[in-house]
C-alpha cells in the first residue's frame, strides 16, 4: 500500500495543486489562504523530489513554509480575517471560469512542452498550473497580500520547471532567499500605512 501511494504521489500532488491554486484565487480569508499556500508548497516539494534529492527538495518546502509564516505573522488584526474587498457571486463565478480556462490551456500545452522538455508529465503539468494560475491571480488583484501570494505561486511554478534542468545547491539556496525576501517585503508592505495619499512631502526638507 505505501509503495502504491508513493507511485501515485505525483498525481496526488497535481490534484492538490489544482485545489490549492483554485482556493487561493477564490478565497478571501487570509488565514485559509496562508494554509493553502503551505499545502501548495508541500505539493511542490513532492513534485520536486521527482528530480532532486530529498534533502535539496526540502529546501523549497522549508523556504515556502517560512514565507507563509512570515506573511501570516504580519497580518495586523484578527478582525480583518475577511478581506474588506470581498468579492460578490459574479466575480466568484468569473474567477472560477477563468481558472477552468487555465486548466484547459495547461492540459493542452503540457503535451507540447513535454516534447521540448522531456520531463515527468506531473512535474510539467504542476509547474504550468502554478504559473498559469499565479499569473491570473496577479492580474486580478491589487491587494498586497494577494499580490504576494500570486507571486509566490508563479515563482514556485518556475522553480519546479527550473529544478528539472538545474540542480545546483547554490541556486536552490539563492532561490530560497528570494522566496523569503518576497515574504519579508510582503510583510513590510502589509505593515505600511494604508489609505489614500495625503500629498505630504518626504521628511528632511531643506
Amino acid at each position, binding site marked *: 500500500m505505501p509503495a502504491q501511494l508513493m507511485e501515485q504521489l505525483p498525481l496526488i500532488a497535481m490534484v492538490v495543486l489544482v485545489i490549492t491554486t483554485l482556493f487561493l484565487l477564490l478565497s478571501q480569508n487570509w488565514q485559509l489562504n496562508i494554509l493553502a499556500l503551505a499545502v501548495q508548497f508541500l505539493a511542490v516539494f513532492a513534485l520536486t523530489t521527482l528530480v532532486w534529492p530529498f534533502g535539496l527538495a526540502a529546501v523549497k518546502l522549508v523556504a515556502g513554509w517560512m514565507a507563509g509564516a512570515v506573511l501570516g505573522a504580519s497580518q495586523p488584526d484578527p478582525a480583518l480575517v475577511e478581506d474588506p474587498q470581498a468579492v460578490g457571486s459574479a466575480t466568484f463565478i468569473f474567477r472560477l471560469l477563468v481558472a477552468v480556462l487555465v486548466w484547459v490551456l495547461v492540459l493542452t500545452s503540457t503535451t507540447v512542452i513535454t516534447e*521540448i522538455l522531456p520531463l515527468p508529465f506531473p512535474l510539467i503539468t504542476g509547474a504550468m498550473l502554478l504559473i498559469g494560475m499565479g499569473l491570473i491571480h*496577479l492580474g486580478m488583484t*491589487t491587494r*498586497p497580500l494577494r*499580490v504576494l501570494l*500570486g*507571486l509566490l505561486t*508563479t*515563482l514556485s511554478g*518556475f*522553480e519546479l*520547471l*527550473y529544478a528539472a*534542468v*538545474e540542480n545546483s545547491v*547554490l*541556486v536552490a539556496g*539563492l*532561490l530560497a*532567499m*528570494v522566496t523569503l*525576501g*518576497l515574504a*519579508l*517585503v510582503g510583510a*513590510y*508592505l502589509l505593515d*505600511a*500605512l*494604508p*489609505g*489614500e*495619499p*495625503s*500629498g*505630504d*512631502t*518626504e*521628511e*528632511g*526638507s*531643506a
Partner: protein
Amino acid sequence: MSSPLIWVVLPILAGFGLWFLRKRYATMALAASLFCLLLALLAWVAPIGTAARLGPLSIEINPTLEFAGRRLVLDASSRTILIYIYVLCAFWFAGSVAAGANRLLIPFGLGITGLLVGALAVEPFLYAALLVEMAVLLAVPIFAPPGKWFGQGVLRFLIFQTLAMPFILLAGWALAGVEANPTNTTLVTLSTVFLGLGFAFWLAVFPFYTWIPLLAEQSYPYISGFFFLLLSTVTLLLGLNFLDRFGWLRALPNLYPVIGQVGALMIVTAGLWAAFQQNLSRLFGYGVIVETGFSLLAISLSNSLGLDLFASMFVPRMIMLGLWALSLSVLLQRVGSTRFEDARGMVQKLPFASAGLAMASLSLAGLPLLAVFPIRQVLMEEVARQSLSSALWALIGTVGMLYSTFRALVILAREPSVRLEAQEMEPEPALPSAATSPTPARSFLESPVQVVLLLIGISGLLFIGLFPRAFLPITAGLINRFTQLP
C-alpha cells in the same frame, strides 16, 4: 584584496554601517558621497590585475573573487563602468538632503548599488538574475518608506521585475544547451524567447512599462530617479554582455532590426502617452522610457558608431535625469504635489526648479544646444539610413515628448486662472516655507543649496550641449569590456 571585494561587498557593508547613522542625515549623506567618490577614484587609479609598487610595497588587486565555485570578475576593462556608477551614487547621495529624499535612500541605495555591480561581475551570468532580484527587493522600502502611503506602482514594479528573474534563469539553461549543441534549433528559439522576455521585463519594454510612470507619480522623484537610472544602466550593460558572449546570438538574422523596432516602439508610445499626461512626475517616468528606447536604437545599429553613441548617452542622461528628479523634488517639497493644476504659475515662486525642469525635459526631447542633441542628431541619421520607419516612429515619439514639455512649461508659467466675471479672487495656497521662513523674504522659495545644485545641473547640460567633444568621449571606455561587439 580583490576588486569585487572593494566594489561589490564593501558598498553593501557600508550601506549596513550607514544605517546606524540615519538619524544624522547630513553626516550620513556626506559620508556616503565621500565613500562613493573614493570608490570611483580607486577604480580610476587602482592597479587591477597588475602589480604596482608603492615604495617597498607591491600592491595588486586581484580581479577575481571566488565564492562557492562561482566567480565575481571586475577586471581593468570594468574601470569606466565602476567610475560612472560610483560617481553617479556620490552626486545623487550628496544632493539627497537638499532634495528632501527619505533617509533610507542612502543605506539601501548603497546595498542596491553593490548588488547591481555584482550582477555585472558574476559568472556564470545566470546569477545576475538573482542579484538583480535581491536589489529589487531592497528597493521596495525606499519606494514605500515606513509610515507613508504607497500605491499600486510599488506592487506593479515588484511583479514585473520579479517575473524577469525566472525567464533569465531559464535563458541561462537554454544558452548552456545551445553552447553544447549549436544545431539544436529548438533550444536556440527557446533561449531567444526567454532572453527576450527577461530583458523585456527588466528594461520595461512596451507593454511592460506601465509601472514606471505609476511609480514615478506615487514615489518621491529623487528616489525613483536614482533607481530608474541605475537599473536601466546595469540592465543595458547586461544585455550587451549577452550579445558579446554569444556569437550565435549576434548572428541571428533579425535580432538587431527587432531591437531597433522595440526601441522605436518604446519611444513612440511613451512620447504619445506623455502628450496626454496631467502630472509632471509621470512625464518624468515617460522620459525614462524614451531614454531607454534611444539606447536600444543605438544598440540596433550593430556597428562601432552605435556603440559609441550608446556609451556617449550615459553622462548627459545622468545629469538630465538628476536635474529633472531634483527639480521635481523641490516642487513637491514646496507645493506638495506635481499635478499640473497644483504647479500652475510656479515659475514665479520656484524659478530655478522650473528652469531645471524645463532644461531637463527639453534636453530629453533633443532640443539643439542642449546635452542630448549632438548624440540624438547622429543617432537619428544613422537609424534613418538603416530603417526609415524606425526613425520616423522615433521622431513622432520625440515630437510627443516635446509637446508634453511645452504643455508643462505653459502650465508652470501660467498665472492662476483669472475669472472674467466680477467675483472674488481665490486666495493663493499658502506655501509652508513662505509662511514660516524667519529669514528675509526671498523672491523665490528654493533654498541656497537647492539653487546651487540646480544651477550646476543646468550648466552641465548647457556645457555638454555647447562642447560635446570635450565631454561625450568620457564614457567611451564603458564599452571596452565588450571585445566581440563591432
